[in-house]
């Protein structure tokens, strides 16, 4: 099983994502932003960071990267794609997911161990969890406030496309405390918190994040 991990020039969590992929039992394949080549991978992770500096809207330039053309096509064909933090922002800009991520309501960067509930266990990236399971993984971003119009929000809610929701104090002002969503097909997931930083208790707050990566292995075996 090969999982591609994309590196834009300003990507920061690519090595962490590759480590998590390895810990789940798959092999991580490095994908370069400038190459329109997915190197035969079965799934793709878009890790956190600042893609091209993100001085414009986060992810606004990345969606035009050569590697993204291939990822958009593959995602539309059903390939599992997980966007974490900046990756989530890129997926929204690429219109693979609805909505947008705006500045945290407190207007500064926030890094903390975040409690979430998993609300949809039928996506490619969440089948290892149980419905309603509470997990703790790091949240770290400056622009993590999920926003969308009312119609999109009610569609996301009614179609069960909220993948994860923040528990406890609202960290960033996201609508309906949304931490992660999926597309209609369930293969593309965007998540603001960082599961790749929670694969063991030595370096993370828990090992809860590993479930996202073991899930995609199961999805690919199917």
């Amino acid at each position, binding site marked *: 099983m090969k999982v591609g991990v994309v590196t834009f020039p300003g990507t920061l969590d690519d090595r962490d994502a590759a480590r998590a992929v390895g810990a789940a039992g798959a092999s991580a394949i490095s994908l370069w932003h400038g190459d329109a080549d997915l190197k035969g991978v079965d799934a793709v992770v878009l890790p956190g960071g*600042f893609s091209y500096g993100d001085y414009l809207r986060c992810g606004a330039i990345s969606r035009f990267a050569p590697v993204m053309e291939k990822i958009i096509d593959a995602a539309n064909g059903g390939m599992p794609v997980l966007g974490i933090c900046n990756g989530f922002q890129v997926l929204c800009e690429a219109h693979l997911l609805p909505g947008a991520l705006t500045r945290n309501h407190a207007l500064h960067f926030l890094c903390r161990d975040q409690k979430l509930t998993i609300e949809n266990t039928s996506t490619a990236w969440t089948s290892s969890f149980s419905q309603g399971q509470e997990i703790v993984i790091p949240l770290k971003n400056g622009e993590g406030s999920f926003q969308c119009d009312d119609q999109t929000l009610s569609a996301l809610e009614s179609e069960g496309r909220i993948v994860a929701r923040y528990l406890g104090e609202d960290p960033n002002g996201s609508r309906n405390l949304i931490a992660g969503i999926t597309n209609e097909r369930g293969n593309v997931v965007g998540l603001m918190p960082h599961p790749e930083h929670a694969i063991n208790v030595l370096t993370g707050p828990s090992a809860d994040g590993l479930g996202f990566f073991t899930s995609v292995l199961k999805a690919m075996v199917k």
Partner: protein
Amino acid sequence: MALDTVASAKSNPDISQPFAELGLKPDEYARIKEILGRRPTSSELAMYSVMWSEHCSYKSSKVHLKQFGDKAVKTDALLVGIGENAGVVDVGQGYAVTFKIESHNHPSFVEPYQGAATGVGGIVRDILTMGARPIAVMDPLRFGPADAPDTRRVLPGIIAGVGGYGNCLGLPNIGGEVVFDETYLGNPLVNALCIGVMKHSDIKLAKAAGAGNLVVLYGAKTGGDGIGGVSVLASETFESTGPAKRPAVQVGDPFVEKVLIECSLEIFAEDLVVGIQDLGGAGLSCATSELASGGSGGMKVELDRVPLRDATLSPEEILMSESQERMCAIVEPSKINRFLEICKKWDVTVTVIGEVTDGDRLEITWHGDLIVDVPPRTVAHEGPVYNRPLAKPDYVDRVNAEVITVKLPESAEEIKAAVLKLAAAPNLADKSWVTDQYDRYVQGNTIQSQPDDSGMVRIDEKTHLGVAVATDANANWSYLNPYEGAKLALAEAARNIATAGAKPLAVTNCLNFGSPEDPGVMWQFAESVRGLADGCLEMGLPVTGGNVSFYNQTGSVAILPTPVIGVLGVIDDVRTRTPMSFDRAGLELYLLGETQNDIAGSEWAYLHGQRGGKAPIADLKREMRLIDLLVTGNKEKLFVAAHDLSQGGLSATLTEMVLRHGIGAEVTLENVGQTLISESPGRVVVAIDPAKSNALKDLAAKENIVMTKIGNTGGDSLIVNGAKIALSELRKAHTETFPKLFG
């Protein structure tokens, strides 16, 4: 103004030059003329003025810093010592670690966000320049009173700047300090520390060797920002047609630096450079003169090839610009194509600007005209040296004679009030409001970060080898006794490493003081350096480098003498570290070390407006025995938790321990007021399984460390001699201070 060339300097020797405006003294200007045998050109004058500034030349501190060499510890661990961009230490398994602190105090007061951001950027480039991958940053910060209006302007900007830059580079922030004191109002201290790791064979040095090798400038384009960052530039003196006054504070672009890091590491991995230097203070003046001095001395540079953001910049301005995110490399001609390829991959601007020659002069041309022709060592290393007058200030004996009269808590009611007051004091309160703005997880190797005693990162995922770093300063003690203050800060930083089980290995420092032209400040500085050098020698820890920041004063009021000491330690297996707190009930709590009547300089005295008395006298032999006890105890798995005592004494330590995992404790203390409040050095609280108590007793006896059982863990309160404080109440006091002040 016409271009001032070497030829015109010879033909027109007597023009008046603005050396005073550039910060040079008349005798310094005379010495430049003597070195060159003529007046300097305006470009040469620009170079000498920035390189001979206090910041770059260490002209007031050099005679004192010499002690770090004279009293050097004999050690094989030091792979690269003082003088290079950063010292390098052997941590075993073929790994070398480099670490250094620098100050960015003045810019951060003028423009908090950019000042702090570029402070992080600068120290990260120093570490990168050694050939290392930067793996973590820390930031000791000091501000005016927490409730002062200007602190509300300065603090949020500095925190956002440290975070904004470091987060974007992908460097975990693993610790630091936030301290408040009146004397920092108008002089906030922004010190930034970076740690980097490499293999021994990958160490790079700043030297330009090999005639015919190319001088390559890569990274950001050069702009007008930062001119005068280290010196004073009267811009009207130079190009009168150019844009007028430019900001003296550099403006950072962390994305460019992130790309520069990855690009440089790829270049290093293919062994494509002979020497390398980052462009920091004094920009190209510094990089070219230092690289040339590091080799045989000969170098030719075509300054007009430097890519510019602002085409109107004059040669003098290009030489002085402190635009960020630039590096200068010496590359063999056979390797230049691959070098250019890697820069292209990362979209990094790269330009060959000159070559190494077999001569001994640094020659710089501007569109073919020779504008600089100097022996580079005279610019980089042979600046003026001052033996400034020093005199013990009058205040010392006066404040040392003061008797501390502050009342210590006795009754249960007073004990509870004191614990809550200390827990909520800005200097001791929970710093999450600050540290939550920093990414501590990126790179996936962070084992410990604030509020732990030290920051710890894993450097090998297979062997679990790791390093720990702590920074400390106790300016209250340094004010009372700068010699002891420096030693005590060293001991505290080393202890903070050892509580986790790591073995202290090397020292760096950032010495923040007032004006060196004040003999009293100079005395504080000299005493601090003497104390640190003596302390390092006694503890067997080499000083790997450091930084001096003078002129931190407003009018005649200087900051408290603030020598920030960083200690690096190594731990063989990060999985076995001793945590700072306990996660279960039923453990025994012991206080290691003796408590004396050390209320002078304490947080309790400060909160009651008293800052006189005598500082404790450091007993470094005892500190070393305590460190041995902590490291051995860790190896023998004696401890469930260990936490240092420092500011706020036992009260602060117990507060932090019980709140970490929400497990309470009940302690009974003799002479409760003093035991709870005193800040006697050399003390640690450990939590152990009752079954290990005999083993701990034996170890403490062997190391001759006094050990006192103070209580047990458990419950949902902290109970001190019957005074019961619910954890919820304690947590509220500890955590609401920062959001209330800055939220």
